[in-house]
């Protein structure tokens, strides 16, 4: 008997497991009324400094928690821990991104109903996090004024899969000869209509506007 191979149609998403878990997380977050925002960027764009300042500003009026992903060390969690008490580090070891399972595991023991915001700082990487849904309500991609204005063109997927672009270190823009118009243009060519915010965690420029924006994001979820 000759063995004739047969084709079997499957049509399964490769990251089905992650997608299913992320959907469950999203439902949990919605039911608990917590606004979950994740932050992605290359290493050194100022994610931790920005979050530390943002959480410091918001902590008085909001109940905030944060998850921080890094390959190694708990330094960033210690830094964010200065701004708010509920911070957990996810050390991924050799894995270059967070996934829904890591997020679900890190949430254990936290009462989500008692939170207004949960911020998730992804591993510093502009490629790998783009494929993994974490169940977040909004994904923010950071680009600092000291990086090239064409970074969105070099890493289009992460910008396209994000909802908001945040240009950080805007106080350094002149020194770095940052071409603001070119940066906006390259962001909008990979993600037309994308909301762009500009901040300096150091001088505080744009921080109020960013805070107001995040509050407006949370508002629809709570007006149930």
């Amino acid at each position, binding site marked *: 008997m000759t*063995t*004739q*191979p*047969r*084709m*079997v*149609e*499957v*049509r*399964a*998403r*490769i*990251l*089905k*497991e*992650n997608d299913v878990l992320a959907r469950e997380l999203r439902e949990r977050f919605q039911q608990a009324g917590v606004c979950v925002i994740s932050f992605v960027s290359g290493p050194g764009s100022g994610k931790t400094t920005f979050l530390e300042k943002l959480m410091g500003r918001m902590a008085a009026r909001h109940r905030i928690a944060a998850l921080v992903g890094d390959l190694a060390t708990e330094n960033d969690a210690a830094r964010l821990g200065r701004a708010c008490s509920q911070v957990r580090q996810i050390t991924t070891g050799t*894995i*270059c*991104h967070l*996934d829904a399972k890591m997020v679900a595991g890190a949430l254990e023991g936290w009462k989500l109903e008692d939170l207004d915001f949960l911020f998730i700082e992804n591993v510093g990487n502009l*490629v*790998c996090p*783009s*494929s*993994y849904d974490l169940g977040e309500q909004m994904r923010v991609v950071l680009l600092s004024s000291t990086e090239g204005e064409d970074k969105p*063109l070099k890493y*289009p*997927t*992460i910008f*396209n*899969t994000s909802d908001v672009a945040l240009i950080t270190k805007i106080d350094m823009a002149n020194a770095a000869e940052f071409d603001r118009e070119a940066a906006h243009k*390259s962001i*909008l*060519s*990979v*993600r*037309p*209509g994308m909301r762009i915010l500009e901040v300096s965690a150091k001088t505080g420029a744009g921080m109020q506007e960013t805070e107001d924006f995040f509050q407006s994001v949370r508002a629809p979820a709570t007006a149930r």
Partner: protein
Amino acid sequence: MHELSIALSMIDRIEEEAAKHSGKVRSAQVKIGVLSGVDCEALRFAWEIARAGTDLEATELEIEKIPLLVRCPACGKTYSPEIQALFCPECITPVQDILAGKELELTTLEIDS
């Protein structure tokens, strides 16, 4: 490089699907969109590492790269732009409606009967 994580997820998916059928999986066909965040060459390399020592050690991976397909909201035409320029080439309207290019999908298995 997260393609190794993707390749390991592929092994799970294929084994899960193959368990529903009898026979060895000769090859697996996947669709990878240009906007999926996965690099096809890196995935091929990762597949060699991921399949070693599993039941899929001899399974070939066939990747179909899916180009971007978008529809212009103004003129209604569909076209395949570069991912760095999501504008309609004719009327320059920004495009948000992505019809294809984000696939990360296991489509078929070739199974020996």
